[in-house]
């Protein structure tokens, strides 16, 4: 199930809305336009909250559920904004057998958010990912471009403290 709660309030600007409307006006009548419109919308807003999907629905006449269905099918679309610090925990095979599931749980517990969500202050977002190419360091997580390896759950509070 996707996350129901929207943790960060929507703060779209008039400029963003105009940019989206322009994109929709350009693409509206081409067949199969929904995906390109959604991709552009994500470029403009960074993610696709209900406010943005409703705008797409109103402008194109596509039912909101259809847009949401596409948004939740493809992993390229995000329903929640990314935080200032993007945390990705590898749940690929090597990391998983080395206990990355526990790392992920620890992060959920400390941050109070789950997969795909962002903390209400906009600071941290949490995602699971597949192999980051550092299996030798398993279990691995990344915060923005920084890689942290050979983790145990007790390492997490200290690492997060660096970003406070």
């Amino acid at each position, binding site marked *: 199930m996707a996350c129901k709660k929207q943790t960060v309030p929507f703060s779209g600007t008039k400029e963003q809305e105009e940019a989206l409307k322009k994109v929709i006006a350009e693409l509206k009548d081409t067949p199969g336009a929904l995906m390109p419109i959604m991709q552009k919308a994500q470029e403009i807003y960074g993610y696709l909250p*209900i406010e943005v999907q409703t705008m797409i629905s109103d402008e194109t006449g596509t039912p909101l*559920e*259809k*847009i*949401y269905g596409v948004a939740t*099918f*493809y992993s390229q679309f995000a329903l929640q904004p990314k935080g200032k610090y993007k945390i990705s925990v590898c749940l690929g095979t090597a990391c998983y057998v080395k206990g990355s599931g526990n790392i992920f749980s620890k992060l959920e517990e400390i941050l109070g958010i789950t997969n795909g969500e962002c903390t209400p202050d906009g600071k941290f977002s949490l995602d699971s990912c597949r192999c980051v190419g550092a299996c030798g360091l398993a279990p691995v997580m990344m915060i923005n471009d920084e890689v942290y390896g050979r983790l145990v759950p007790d390492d997490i509070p200290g690492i997060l403290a660096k970003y406070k």
Partner: protein
Amino acid sequence: MENVTIKINGMEVTAPKGSTILEAARLAHIEIPTLCFLKEINEIGACRICVVEVKGARSLVASCVYPINEGMEVWTNTPRVLESRKKTLQLLLSNHDRKCLSCVRSGNCELQQLAKELGVEDESYYDGERTPSEIDDSAAHMFRDNSKCILCRRCVAVCEQVQGIGVIGANQRGFATNIGSAFEMGLGETSCVSCGQCIAVCPTGALYEKSCIDDVLAAIHDPKKHVIVQTAPAVRAGLGEEFGYPIGTDVQGKMAAALRRIGFDKVFDTNFSADLTIMEEAHEFIERVQNGGVLPMITSCSPGWVKYCEHYFPEMTRNLSSCKSPQQMFGAIAKSYYAEKMGIDPKDIVSVSVMPCTAKKFEIGRPDEDASGYPDVDYSMTTRELARMIKKLGIRFCDLPDEEFDAPLGIGTGAAVIFGATGGVMEAALRTAVETLTGEELPSVDFTQVRGTEGIKEATYEVAGMEVKVAVASGLANARKLLNMVKNGEAQYHFIEIMGCPGGCVNGGGQPQQPGFVRNTTDIRALRASVLYQLDENNPIRKSHENPAIKELYATYLGKPGSEKAHHLLHTTYVKRSIN
């Protein structure tokens, strides 16, 4: 038409070019099992139950969507085919809550039927992880239990394509895939119109109406309550299917007998209030025409349509007739006129309806539907619920004698009974409006141009020197098409009838469920509608304004159509709703 000859299981079959293997096999009297397939609605080849072997093909093919070619050789029953179907079924069952004993669909579940046909021997064999789900009870009329969902997407297709709404769809992917609404909203929070067409096409017990059987039985067994029942026209044309009668069997007499044996104090008929609706609606129409009121006037009998209008065409709610639906008019009269006549306090009357409809469950809770100070209708049951109730009480339906409805609220005309078929309300209204305007008797009461199951129908009639243009639409995608034409000025009408379900109430979301292969090969709507037109023809009184009980109601209580009292009791208001 050009024909193609192929071989199925070694036997030659000739079928029209463009047929699918499934259709060609049918001509050879072979029914290939299907699950997701609904003709012209859901042709996606997704469930893989209908797979067959085709010579030269790399893998098994989905016969429901695979077109035939000259010389093609097909096998429908090889071990490879049967093994594949069984494996597919096993995978479906492994993510299905197999509580058949307590399932509302047990006995007419298409999945259960397949399990029987393909030979499922051991239920615990399918234990394993299941996609987590919760029952959605947010809508007024129904539940969604995704633990029984097999992701066939029939409900999604019917909602989006037939009804043009699309509030449900597939969310997520892979094992997490589930049918739901945008942003995990409950169905009750969306712009779902409660038509129940999704329930009608669901092959399993994932979608079902909120039942009020126990509440109604409790009321019947409460000695302080006077429990009355009304039955919509279409119920008598569908109920028999639940008891093994062929589609299109009239069971009006047995239905009245069964209701009496269930223990209702009075067995009445919505036909009575359908006639009343015509009196009020025809009067409203004439008044709008003569006094420059808003035209076209659009019928308001179908609560699914009314809710759709409020969500999707809010600017056109002023076109809606202010008349309550027959169900609500009946309840309003039962708790006022009838209560006074019988000397019963309306608070002790329990007003029950049996409807071919799930939106009626939503309608009884609308604002401004409680003219007596009490709800016009307390419980609205579907045709299916009535069948379950009859079975629950051990009433042997097929052995019952034919009985009559009770007077006075059980008296209806031929004009009323055709309300259950698309075009019926229009025809009934024309019979009364034309005679009222001309003051002369119609040479023929049959307005055949507005009959039939086409989605949109038009006709023009010459009435008292005036051209009256009418249109009839059923199914909400058709309604949208028609209304857009009206909005854009491409078509002009005086009077429009719209029914939420395709074919009208006979094909309502509360009618008996027919499995996919019956829906795909039978014109269910036309068969059920034929029952109503036959009842109309057999009725000595075929015009609403000639109904003696209606005449008495106006003479002794309401005054005349459109009177202040009639307005207070029989008319309602509409709201604007958003699209979600």
